[in-house]
């Protein structure tokens, strides 16, 4: 037993010792710690963020203010705030990073925010979209989006476009509740009336009963929120089967409902669905055309809103470093980030100096056939949307 225990312990220590020390470079690089899911069910989205980051560094070079930018990647594996927090702590105390970034998922971003606040390190959120995240650390800025930003903008737009009565259908889980709340607020504040709402289970196989119930109330629009995967096709089919005519009853949703994969499975049932999103690879601008061309060349796939979060997040890091003249402490970097504005592939964006959250255009798109292909075609936009949730907190 003695040998066995000793042996096992030495094994464990040996494994831990492998990476214990790293040689220090003469000219210290600026280190950026990335915390993203590179494995598990969120790996694909994590990779799309990473692709955006890599593309930015490929285009702008791996140096800012004359110093090398070194990226240290950490896999958080999924929704795991305890791991995210530990990784953030380790990145700071062990790897001595100057900036922490990434964060696909809200719980992970919230946990790491504590570390950013305590260690006074600049933190850039590249996706996680729950409104309150940026309130958790004064050194944090967000380069992606917030859920209320999209849905309240959509609600307000819907009323302005002439819709007076709307019905709400959402999946019964956290993000669904958030979407419901913020659409409802945007729509009601503008003057609209919610004539009814329903919540259904997250993995619901058949929506016909729910759609029928909505149809019976005869609303002018139906707002829908379901998670990706098989759900968009199922609800698209139910809407078509029950004879909901998009010309008469508008279908409104957040952009994920009509992602390319979802459109493929929905087919023509998706025609006429109106969604709100801050970025789509079909967005018509010179900056975006160049971005999409470079992205597809490098990764043989289209960028999505995850990629743009990574790309713009990296831009925010580079530019803040430049503006702070190479100072890397949290105070200087967040001061530099506040109020920064630039032309992103998604359009003009800026960082709100008060909330450190992104201000951007929300595009209103309709599913149409373009050259035989189903596409989200932008036909209107709500300009310079601030996160409405934090605007109310003041």
């Amino acid at each position, binding site marked *: 037993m003695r040998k066995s225990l000793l042996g096992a312990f030495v094994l*464990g220590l040996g494994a831990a010792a492998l990476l214990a020390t790293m040689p220090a470079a003469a000219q210290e690089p600026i280190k950026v710690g990335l915390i993203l899911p590179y494995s598990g069910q969120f790996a694909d989205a994590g990779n799309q963020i990473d692709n955006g980051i890599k593309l930015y560094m490929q285009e702008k070079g791996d140096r800012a203010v004359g110093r090398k930018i070194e990226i240290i990647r950490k896999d958080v594996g*999924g929704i795991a*705030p*305890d791991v995210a*927090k530990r990784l953030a702590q380790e990145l700071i105390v062990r790897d001595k990073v100057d900036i922490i970034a990434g964060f696909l998922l809200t719980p992970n971003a919230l946990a790491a925010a504590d570390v950013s606040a305590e260690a006074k390190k600049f933190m850039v959120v590249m996706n996680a979209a729950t409104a309150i995240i940026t309130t958790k650390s004064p050194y944090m800025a967000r380069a992606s989006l917030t859920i209320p930003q999209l849905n309240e903008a959509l609600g307000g737009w819907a009323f302005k476009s002439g819709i007076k009565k709307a019905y709400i259908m959402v999946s019964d889980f956290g993000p669904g509740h958030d979407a419901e709340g913020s659409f409802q607020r945007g729509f009601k504040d503008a003057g609209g009336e919610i004539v009814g709402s329903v919540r259904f289970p997250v993995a619901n196989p058949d929506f016909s009963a729910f759609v029928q119930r909505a149809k019976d109330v005869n609303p002018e629009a139906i707002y829908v929120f379901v998670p990706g995967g098989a759900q968009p096709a199922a609800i698209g089919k139910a809407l078509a089967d029950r004879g909901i005519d998009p010309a008469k009853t508008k279908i409104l949703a957040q952009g994920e409902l009509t992602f390319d994969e979802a459109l493929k499975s929905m087919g023509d049932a998706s025609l006429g669905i109106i969604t709100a999103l801050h970025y789509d690879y079909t967005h018509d601008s010179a900056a975006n055309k160049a971005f999409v061309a470079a992205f597809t060349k490098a990764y043989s796939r289209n960028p999505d809103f995850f990629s743009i979060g990574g790309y713009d997040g990296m831009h925010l890091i580079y530019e803040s470093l430049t503006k702070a003249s190479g100072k890397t402490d949290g105070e200087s970097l967040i001061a530099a980030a506040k109020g920064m504005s630039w032309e992103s592939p998604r359009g003009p964006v800026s960082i709100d100096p008060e909330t450190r959250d992104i201000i951007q255009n929300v595009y209103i798109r309709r599913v149409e056939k373009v050259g035989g292909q189903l596409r989200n075609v932008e036909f209107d936009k709500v300009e310079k949307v601030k996160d409405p949730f934090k605007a109310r907190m003041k």
Partner: protein
Amino acid sequence: MSTDTMALDARRHIARQIRWRPAEVIFWLATLLPFVLFPTHLVLASQIAITALFALSLDLILGYAGIVSLGHAAFFGLGAYTAGLLSKHGWGEPLSGLVLSALVAGIVGFAASLVIARFRHLALIMITLGMGLLLHEAANSASWLTGGVDGLQGVKMWQVLGQFRFDLYGYTAYSYALAVLFLSFLLVRRIVHSPFGLALRGIRENSVRMTAIGASARAHVRKVYTISAALAGVAGALLTQTTSTVSLETLGFQRSAEVLVMLVLGGAGRLYGGLVGAIIFMSARDQFSGITPLYWYFWIGTLLVAVVLFLPNGILGGLARLRWRRR
């Protein structure tokens, strides 16, 4: 052999088991090494200690009483949420938080044991898995209480003993987790080397015969399951307290499965199996995921397959056999 000498033998057997071996002393002294050798790895070390405690609690029921569980995270999560909710609602004192978490997990564990004690083997896998999933889903839908998918917000821990705050480097976290692990280990060690522990091993080998010789298998199983649940609750509470976060994943299937893997990796029914398994699994994961964030699962998988192929009784089992052969 008369009954007298048999009883004497049993007593002597227990006395021999209970004596501290030099290797054990060295092991526990070595747990202090991270403070000196890896002062920047203390946060990881604290989470290893917590996972080791969780694995130890599983060893008590799986390794000693033969109760297979795929839902042990239920108690881990109960402890985690209890500690988190206490702190959120104004009571952030860590030690009393641990006790209350153990109590809650223990009570639920006792309720569950009324069912558990009636079944063996495959049926247990289904039941524990089902219980785990139910609790996970319940916590998900009760988002007013648990914060749902976003996790519990507003967990603020007070200082340990009113002296030590949880620092960025993890000095407090590791010291605290290690102390709790050691005390829990002493408790478990005492239990498995008691007549009660012997009876548990008897139940593992043949529960019908144990009943026949007068040891009520069900009562014993209920007892050990409750203790194990309470310990798992302590581990969960430790995680909450050292990280100030609670997520649904503390109740998740993956946590149940991983702790089982660690225990099997280290060697079940060997007291130190869970500890060694947790150290190796988590260090390996930390290293592999640092080297290749995208493909580290491949290496973890390889490690597991290799252990199962060449060391079917876990690492400790394999080493023990090696030593026995050499003799």
